[in-house]
């Protein structure tokens, strides 16, 4: 079936099977490998992309569902001014190690900041609870995101 979507700001037309997952289409067919596959069951969030501005797990999101929507991957987001600020906070706090979870966290953080959902430590913990990171132990991520949200983080 044919799907029309806006991918990273560009109108895009794709031929997909009804069962094709968005993550596979992005990674294998379009070469957009910035989003990662890990758990496959919507737990880890490593495959997060933004659909109409909101974070979704692309490992369990049908490509067909993206019809008529705006899809943003890290490859698109990194070209926007909002990226620099988030990236800078993550780098300053060393809120990344292996990097496998990182693009997903950057996109999720951006979406939550845009929606005004990150107001204090509790809301950051809640908002990011769908993004696993096995390396950092989350302290650095909490600090980086609190910095961006202008919130206080415990130490």
């Amino acid at each position, binding site marked *: 079936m044919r799907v029309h979507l806006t991918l990273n700001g560009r109108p895009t037309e794709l031929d997909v099977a009804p069962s094709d997952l968005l993550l596979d289409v992005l*990674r*294998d067919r379009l070469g957009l*490998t*910035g*989003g*990662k*596959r*890990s*758990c*496959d*069951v919507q*737990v*880890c969030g*490593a495959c997060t992309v933004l659909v109409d501005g909101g974070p979704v797990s692309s490992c369990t999101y049908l490509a067909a569902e993206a019809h008529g929507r705006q899809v943003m*991957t*890290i*490859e698109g987001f*990194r070209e926007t001014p909002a990226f620099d600020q988030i*990236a800078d906070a*993550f*780098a*300053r706090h*060393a809120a*990344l*190690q*292996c*990097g*496998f*979870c*990182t*693009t997903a966290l*950057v996109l999720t953080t951006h979406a939550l900041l845009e929606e005004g959902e990150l107001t204090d430590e509790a809301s*950051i*913990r*809640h908002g*990011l*609870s*769908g*993004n*696993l*990171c*096995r*390396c*950092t*132990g*989350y*302290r*650095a*991520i*909490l600090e980086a995101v609190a910095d961006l949200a202008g919130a206080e983080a*415990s*130490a």
Partner: protein
Amino acid sequence: MTVIDVKGPTVGAGQVGRSMRRVDADEKLRGEAQYVGDIVIPGMLHGKVLRSPVPRARIVSMDTAAAATMPGVVAILTGDDLLDIDPFWGHAIKDRPIVAIGMVRFVGEPVAAVAAVDETTAEAAVKAIVVEYEDLPVVGTLDEALAPDAPLVHDGPTRPGLFHGLGTLPERDGNVCYRYRIGTDEVDPIFETAEVVVEGTYEFPGVYQYAMETHGVVAQVDGTGITLWATCQHPFLVRAEIAALFDVPLGKVRIHVPYLGGGFGSKSYTKMEPITVALARKAGRPVRIVNRVDESMVTTRRHNARTWMRTAATSDGRLLAREARVWFDTGAYADNGPRVTATGGDAAPGPYRWSAMRVDALCVYTNTAPSGSYRAFGASHLQWVGELQVDEVARTVGMDPVEIRRLNLARPGDEVRRGGKPLDADLVGDVEKVADALGWDRPRDADTGRGLSVGLLAAGAHPVSSAVVRMETDGDVVVLVGSTEMGQGQRTAMAQIAAEVLAMPAERVRCQGTDTRFTPYDRSTGASRSTTLAGLAVQKAAAEVREDLLDIAALVWPHPVASIELRDGAARCGGESRTYPELIARRFGLSGGQLTGEADVHPQGTGSYAEGPVFWEVCIAAAEVHVDRATGQVTVRRTATIADVGKAINPQLVERQDEGATMQGIGNALFEEMVYADGILLNDNLLEYRVPTIEDLPAHSTCVIVENGDGPGPFGAKGCGEGAFAGIIGAIATAVADAGVPVRELPLTPERVWRSIQEMQEDHR
């Protein structure tokens, strides 16, 4: 502290000891960093593995006909394709076939593999392969494996692997594949007469490392040899094992290591490389296999273990003797089990001044997933047990946990293990620091417990590393070193070390992933060894380039070298200066050239395990927990860890290492557990196998960096990043015990804690 001889005054360049931004930050944040699963090479097929659904069975028949004719299927690998080679591998014990031959020994064991044009086709073909199994009695647990009439998981002789590194491997005894014994019989009379004796049996769970990136390999087999892109912590050991397995010279195996999405030990030694190479060989085209999480979970895991331990002491709190017997469940194949067993044996006594101790540690086969390395292995299994007993002694004699440790801990220079490296850290100082950092003496309520734990981990593995440092015409530097960047910040640390020696900004030093054809040999990335050993090789290699720069500078200024100083990327003498590019042009003329330094680190003695370790990694942490007596829920409120690193190359990254280890330790102590029943893993996915989320982050955590300059690495550094894992498990266990709940079994799930509380109340009735 290791002193490298360098010409000229060594001015602190300020590159070491600075929390510079990670050199890989931008690539990773931008999604440009490449991992194995992102790599596509021309003609590449996708591989999927057919895995055994049963824990122990004879393979009666296998029918691949239907799968083979499916459109898009290129090759199917079975045991029949391996008749031209000796298809068994395993770095410790060569006990593992590339794919099952005649029988299967655990659920998830590779039985066949398919290469097809895409993953969906490969997966469909895997499902179309029909295998008939004849079930055999299952050895599902340690008890079943150790029963007198237990079926044998393996029969036939034990064949040592290439890198067991533990002296002569004994013959297998029933299902016991390795045994590590230290200490003496002098313990017996002490236990007979001691005033205080505590004793117990403790259970440690099998857990999954969960590097978020699963195991993955791209393999290509052609006229030039075997080329791999693989998730390898130890590319040079894998190269040797692949060369031996497929009977080709080392130089015909080439391994590329891109970024790793976490390792934590799960990607140490050989894992998915043999099956991918065998499949690519059959297909005659490159093949990529990337595991799903359920597959990586059974590719390697952490040993579950049982420990019986007793500790003797005087009534005034002097520790006298300790004895332990430990059984490590290594699953169906040894993997790194023998080394885990030895390291656990070394950790069992704990770093105290014993009059006598005796440890007997056994590595046992069962029909479960093979068990190998995971951060701070051995110490994580044993430290919590020993520390619970130290606290039990303290409670019995009415002493504070800090006080009893101050009285009994080993001092720098004390023997830790007979014939091995003496203690190289100030443990008493560290314990005092961690207690302070936690707020040991702050008031608390009845449901709050505090604990701290101290231990040592034999670190560094085998001390062989080498490095090449190259200064380009423009003064930028490339470091070639074979340790793997898996998140720990190795590339950043290496850049800082080279930059310090060369007195230039670390931002101008590049360090890339290994290509075994060009990168000099490094034994492995693990055992907290990279900064210490690979870092030392980088420091020495950089010192050679430094010498070259000074030699050239001495031609510019006819002064003694002692009066020439390297600073900020230039040589300086009197009021004059020459930049590095200017010095390079002076030697080579205008067309360019390159200064190269090369160095290695090798064992001083024979390099045997008994002589080691390279250093004792300090495992110290403290925790404050809250126990909800109605639900059994344990909440970690506060943690403190000690990073006793000799010298912090990058303090921020040191802290971040401890934070990561702390969180993994919290998962291991409180809820992570691979649940097996009759050899079947019941929670083989991340919905049912829960790992910590940001909601589990304790309200407060502190990492205290201790820099005593007492490490064998560059600038007095020693490794870190693992110790906190063992430390925090012990701290949580002792804290829960301090809150009045007996602890004998991990993880401390609400149900387990609630039951302990109920049983205790019944005992008191």
